[in-house]
Structures are given as structure tokens and as C-alpha cells.
């Protein structure tokens, strides 16, 4: 219960951050990705602000005695190999990001914006994720 409540709080704060920074506006994201156009560097500061706050938490979690408040252990990926799946997946994602200006967090947050095309994107994104599940279990 506490675990679920904590996750809900994280989601809400994350959603407020996306709305405030305007990262749930595809035009804003595409203006960052358009280096040859009227460039808007805002996204770089969003990443910088997020990293400045998150990095100390990850450093703290690395201490041997550290454990989370409401769970038994930290579940942090341990793989370190930079393989073909990582690069191919990130490439496909990058192309999709450049075509639409949405990544998963902003697309879900902006479902509350009352714009039908956000739902189109989110449903297509879900279909893509389902396609991956089917493909990876073949």
C-alpha cells in the first residue's frame, strides 16, 4: 500500500514537472531537436535540472547498507554491455521522437490535455509496446 502510494506521488510530481517545463508540448521538444532551425535549448536545462537532483539519490543508494523505505531492495539494472538491441531500440526510438516530438512520459502526462491526437499517439505507442512483447516471446 505504501509502495503504491509512493509510486502515485512520484508519478504526480513527475507529471507536474513535465507540465511546468512544457516537455509535454511536442513543438517545444522538436524546437530543441531542430538544431538548424529556431533552436530552443530548454530541454537541455530540463535534463540538467533532473540530473542535478537525481544523481545524489543514486549515489546514496549505492552505499552497501542502503535500502529503500518501502521495499526490500533496490532494483537497479546491472547489465553493462552495449549491445545491438540497445542501440537498435534507441535508434528506432530516436526516429519516432524526431517524427512526433513525444516520448513516453510526456505522451502519458498530456493525456490530460484534452487533445485527441495525444490519444492517437499513446494508443500507437501501446501498440508498439505490445508488438515488442509479441516479438520478444516468439
Amino acid at each position, binding site marked *: 500500500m505504501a*509502495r503504491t502510494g509512493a*509510486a502515485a*506521488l*512520484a*508519478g504526480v*510530481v*513527475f*507529471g*507536474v*514537472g*513535465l507540465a*511546468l517545463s*512544457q*516537455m*509535454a*508540448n*511536442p*513543438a517545444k521538444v*522538436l524546437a530543441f*531537436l531542430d538544431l*538548424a*532551425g*529556431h533552436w*530552443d535549448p530548454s530541454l537541455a536545462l*530540463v*535534463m540538467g535540472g533532473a540530473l*542535478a*537532483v*537525481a544523481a545524489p*539519490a*543514486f549515489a546514496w543508494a549505492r552505499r552497501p547498507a542502503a535500502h*529503500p523505505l*518501502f521495499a526490500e531492495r533496490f*532494483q537497479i539494472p546491472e547489465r*553493462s554491455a*552495449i549491445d545491438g538491441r*540497445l*542501440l*537498435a*531500440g534507441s*535508434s528506432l*526510438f*530516436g*526516429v*519516432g*521522437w*524526431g*517524427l*512526433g*516530438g513525444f516520448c*513516453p512520459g510526456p505522451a*502519458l502526462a498530456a493525456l490530460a*490535455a484534452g487533445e485527441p491526437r495525444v490519444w*492517437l499517439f*499513446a*494508443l*500507437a505507442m501501446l*501498440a*508498439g*509496446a505490445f508488438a515488442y512483447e509479441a516479438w520478444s516471446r516468439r
Partner: protein
Amino acid sequence: MTEFTPGPALLGGALIGAASAWLLLADGRIAGVSGILGGLLRPAPGDRSWRLAFVLGLPAGYALYSWLAGRPPVSIEAPALQFAAAGLLVGFGTRLGSGCTSGHGVCGVARASPRSIAATATFMGLGFATVFVVRHLLGGA
């Protein structure tokens, strides 16, 4: 076309970082949106409620901000077919690549994971290249 907004960008980013730090310290989990959403598509009893709570929190937070400060603009110029194709690529690609802007770009880079740094450089690079091709070579949106 949008204008540089350094203040809200830094503050919003700090909130995203705080949410990621909180999910880590409270639940021991990486705040990677594609991974949390993807986990909902798999049968895993006992592992669904925190995922669903986080995912529903995103639009709830967006709605809360809109209610307090006015709805932020959502400007979509891409034609519907292009936008839907973008969604498919984002959904499939982030699952194949084990992460997106939040899981790799924020959490992974924050813990200096070589995989996440490589992933972030890759999707950023392809994002820049795709926008260049679409806007400056093909004349699209």
C-alpha cells in the same frame, strides 16, 4: 517555434529529478516510464499496482498543474499518419532498447551507466537527424 524558457525548464527538470529520486529511495525502482508501462503488459501478479499508480500519476500531475497554473500548450504539427507512426516507433523502440528519456536519459545518466549514456547519445543523435531530414530536407513538420 517556441522560445527558450530557462526558469521553468530548470524547475520542472528538478521536479522530474525529485520524482525519480523519490521512487528510488521509497520503492527501490527506476523511474523509467517505458519500462514501468511495459511491465503492465506482462502477467506479473503483485507487481502491477505500483506501476499503474505511477502511470496514472503522470496525467494527474499534468491536470493538477493545469488547474493551478493554466493548461500548458500542446502544439502538434505532424500529420496524423506521421504522428501515429512516431508512436509505434517510440513504443517498440523504447522496449527493445530497454528505456527512454526518463529511464536512460535521467536515471541511467544520473548513475553514470555506460549503457544508458550510449542509449541517450543514440536516441538524441537520431532525434536531431530525423528533425533535420523532415524539416530541412523534406520540408515537413
